[in-house]
C-alpha cells in the first residue's frame, strides 16, 4: 500500500471521486494550472479538463456562491478557499444560503457542496494565513464541519464529505500537510461523518482534540493513562464516544489551536457538563490558543498550544 502524506491523500480522494462521478467538479483560485498553492489539486486539470477543474477569478464570494448554484443544479462542487483566513468574503454565501437552502425550500433544493480550506498555524506564513476559526462554522446550523488529522482519515472523510447531501466545511491543517505519511489505500473507503475515533485507550483522562492539535496531544500524554479522542467531525459531533470515555475516566481535557473564548472546546465542555457532570472527578480543562489576534511568525510558536502546556493541563486534571 502506498505511503502518502495528507496532500497526496486528499488529492487521491478528489481524483477517485471525480473518476467515479462526473458531477464532481472543483473550483477555486489557482486550483487548475498551478495545482493549488499547496498542490492538493495537482494533476487534476490535466486529467479532468478545465470544465471540471475551474480556475476562478479571485473572488471568494462567487466561489462559494457559484458552488451553491452548481449544487442546486445537480453538480457536486468542491470549492477551495486558498486559506481559511480568506473565507470571510464567502461567509455570506455559506451562512445565508448554503446553510439554509434545504430549509428555505422545504427540501425541494439541497446544497451538497464541500468547501475545502487549509487552516491553522505553524508554517510561519503571513497574516491571515494561520487562522483556525472552525467554531464560527460550527455555530451555523445547516453546515457540517470536518477536520481530519491524518492522511488516511483525510481521504475517507473527504469521500464522505463529497457524498454528503449537505454543505461541509473541510479544514486541512497546513502544518500536517506534509508532516506525516501513512498507508492510504487506493479505492473507495468512506469514514462516516459525525463519528469520532479513539486513537488511544486509557483510564485516567479523556483528551479530546482534532486536526494538528491531535498530534501535539498525543506527544503530551506520554506517561499518563490517557484516552485520546480525535473528534474528526466537529459538527455534528460524536457525543456518544465522548460520553462513553468520560464515564470511564472521569476527567476531560480539550485541546484546540483556536482562541479560547467561544472556541469549539466550549461546546464540548458544556455538553459534557450537561450530560455527564456526575461522572466528573475534576474540572474540565481547556488548553487552547490565546484570546488574541493570531500573531505573525516571530510569536507564532508562543501562541500555539505546546506539548508542555498540554502536559500541564493533564497534570492539573490529575490533581483531583
Amino acid at each position, binding site marked *: 500500500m502506498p505511503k502518502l502524506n495528507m496532500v497526496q491523500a486528499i488529492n487521491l480522494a478528489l481524483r477517485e471521486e471525480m473518476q467515479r462521478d462526473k458531477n464532481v467538479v472543483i473550483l477555486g483560485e489557482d486550483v*487548475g494550472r498551478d495545482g493549488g*498553492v499547496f498542490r492538493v489539486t495537482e494533476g487534476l486539470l490535466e486529467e479532468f479538463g478545465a470544465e471540471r477543474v475551474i480556475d476562478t477569478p*479571485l473572488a*471568494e464570494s462567487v466561489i462559494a456562491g457559484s458552488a451553491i448554484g452548481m449544487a442546486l443544479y445537480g453538480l457536486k462542487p468542491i470549492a477551495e478557499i486558498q486559506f481559511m483566513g480568506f473565507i470571510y468574503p464567502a461567509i455570506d454565501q455559506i451562512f445565508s444560503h448554503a446553510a439554509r437552502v434545504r430549509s428555505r425550500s422545504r427540501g425541494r433544493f439541497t446544497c451538497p457542496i464541500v468547501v475545502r480550506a487549509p487552516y491553522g498555524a505553524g508554517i510561519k506564513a503571513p497574516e491571515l494565513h494561520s487562522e483556525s476559526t472552525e467554531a464560527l462554522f460550527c455555530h451555523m446550523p445547516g453546515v457540517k464541519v470536518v477536520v481530519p488529522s491524518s492522511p488516511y482519515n483525510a481521504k475517507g472523510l473527504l469521500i464522505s464529505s463529497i457524498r454528503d447531501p449537505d454543505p461541509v466545511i473541510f479544514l486541512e491543517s497546513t502544518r500536517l500537510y506534509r508532516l506525516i505519511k501513512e498507508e492510504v489505500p487506493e479505492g473507495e473507503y468512506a469514514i462516516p461523518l459525525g463519528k469520532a475515533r479513539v486513537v488511544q485507550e486509557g483510564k485516567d483522562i479523556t483528551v479530546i482534540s482534532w486536526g494538528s492539535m491531535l498530534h501535539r496531544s498525543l506527544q503530551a500524554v506520554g506517561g499518563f493513562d490517557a484516552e485520546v479522542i480525535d473528534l474528526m467531525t466537529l459538527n455534528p459531533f460524536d457525543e456518544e464516544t465522548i460520553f462513553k470515555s468520560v464515564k470511564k475516566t472521569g476527567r476531560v481535557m480539550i485541546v484546540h489551536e483556536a482562541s479560547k473564548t467561544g472556541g469549539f472546546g466550549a461546546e464540548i465542555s458544556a455538553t459534557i457538563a450537561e450530560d455527564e457532570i456526575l461522572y466528573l472527578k475534576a474540572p474540565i480543562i481547556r488548553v487552547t490558543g490565546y484570546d488574541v489576534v493570531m500573531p505573525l511568525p*516571530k510569536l507564532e510558536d508562543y501562541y500555539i498550544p505546546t506539548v508542555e502546556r498540554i502536559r500541564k493541563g493533564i497534570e492539573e486534571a490529575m490533581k483531583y
Partner: protein
Amino acid sequence: MPVRVIETIDIKRLDILDEKGNVDESLMPALSDIEIKGMYELLTLSRTFDHHALSLQREGRMGTYASIFGQEASQIGSALALEKSDWIFPSFREMGVYITMGYPLHMLFQYWGGDERGVKCPEGLNIFPVCVPVGTQTPHAAGAAMAAKYKGDKIAVACYFGDGGTSEGDFHESMNMAGVFKLPVVFICQNNQWAISVPRERQTASKTIAQKAAAYGFEGVQVDGNDIFAVYKATKEAVDKARRGDGPTFIECFTYRMSDHTTADDAARYRTKEEVDAWKAKDPILRLRLFMEKNGLWSEQYQKEVEEKAKTVVDEAIRTAEAIEHPEPKDMFTYTYEKLTPRQIKEMRDF
C-alpha cells in the same frame, strides 16, 4: 423607434517614456533634473531593497515576501504624486510606495521578518498596514475619503491593489460608493498581468481594467506602468482633481510581475520564460536611464554612486532590523483591545 446609442466610453492610454528612453515632449510632466534624478534614485533603492529581501528570504533570515521587481515605476511614480498628508491604503506588494513616502526601511524588513511592530506607521505618515486579504482595503479608502470630505480636508486618498483584486466584490462596492459620493480617492491598480497563476484575461473579460470605472460613473485611464513619467502624470492629475473636489479616478498601471508571486511560489509552473523575457526589454529603470543618458543626466560614475548609496542604505536597514530585540510574547496580547480583558490577564501569566 430606432435603437439609439445612449452612452459610449473612450478609454485613454497614456505613454510618455518609451523603452528606448525617448519621451513625448508634449505630454512630459514638468520635472526638474533634480526631480528626475530623484526618481531614478528611488527606483534603484526600491529594487535594491527588493533584491536584498529576496536573498534574505532565501537565507532563512526573513519570511515569505512579495517582490515588487518590475513594478517599481508604478509604485514610485504614483507615490511621488502624493503628499505626506495624503492617506494610503496599500495591499501587500507596495514596498516601493512605502519607500517613496519615507517609511523607515528597517521596519519593512522587520515586518517581512514576521514582526508586526514593523507595520506600525510612524507619526507624520498615513500609510495603512500591509493588507493581506485581497481587495479588502478598497472600502477603507472610500470611507477615509468620505471622512476627509466631511471634514473639509484637502487631501487625497490613494488605494493600491492588483488586477486580481478587481474581481473581489469589495472592489466594486468601493468604486460604486466613490462614484456616487464623488469621493477624493484615487484607485491605483497595478495590473501586473498575473494573480498568482491566473492570467489577467481570466480575471475579467473586459478589454481593459480601466474601463471598469466607466460603469461607476467616473474616469478610468490606462497608463504604461513601466513608464514613471506617465504614472506620475496620471496620478498627479488624479490627486489634484480629488483635492479640487472633482471626485475619484481609476488608474490602471499596465505592468508586469517579473518575480514569482511570492517566495512561496514557482511561476515557472504556469508562465513561459519567453513571456518574462519579453518584459525584460520594457524594464522601468533601464528606460529612465536611457532617457537620462540622452539628456546628460547619467554617467557611469553617477550609476556607481547611486548603486553604492542604495546598497549602503539597505545594508544599514537590514543591520538595524536584525539588531532589534525579539518581540516579547506578551506583545501578542497588548493590542487586542485598548485594555486587556480579565481572561487575557489570566492567559498572560503563562509568560
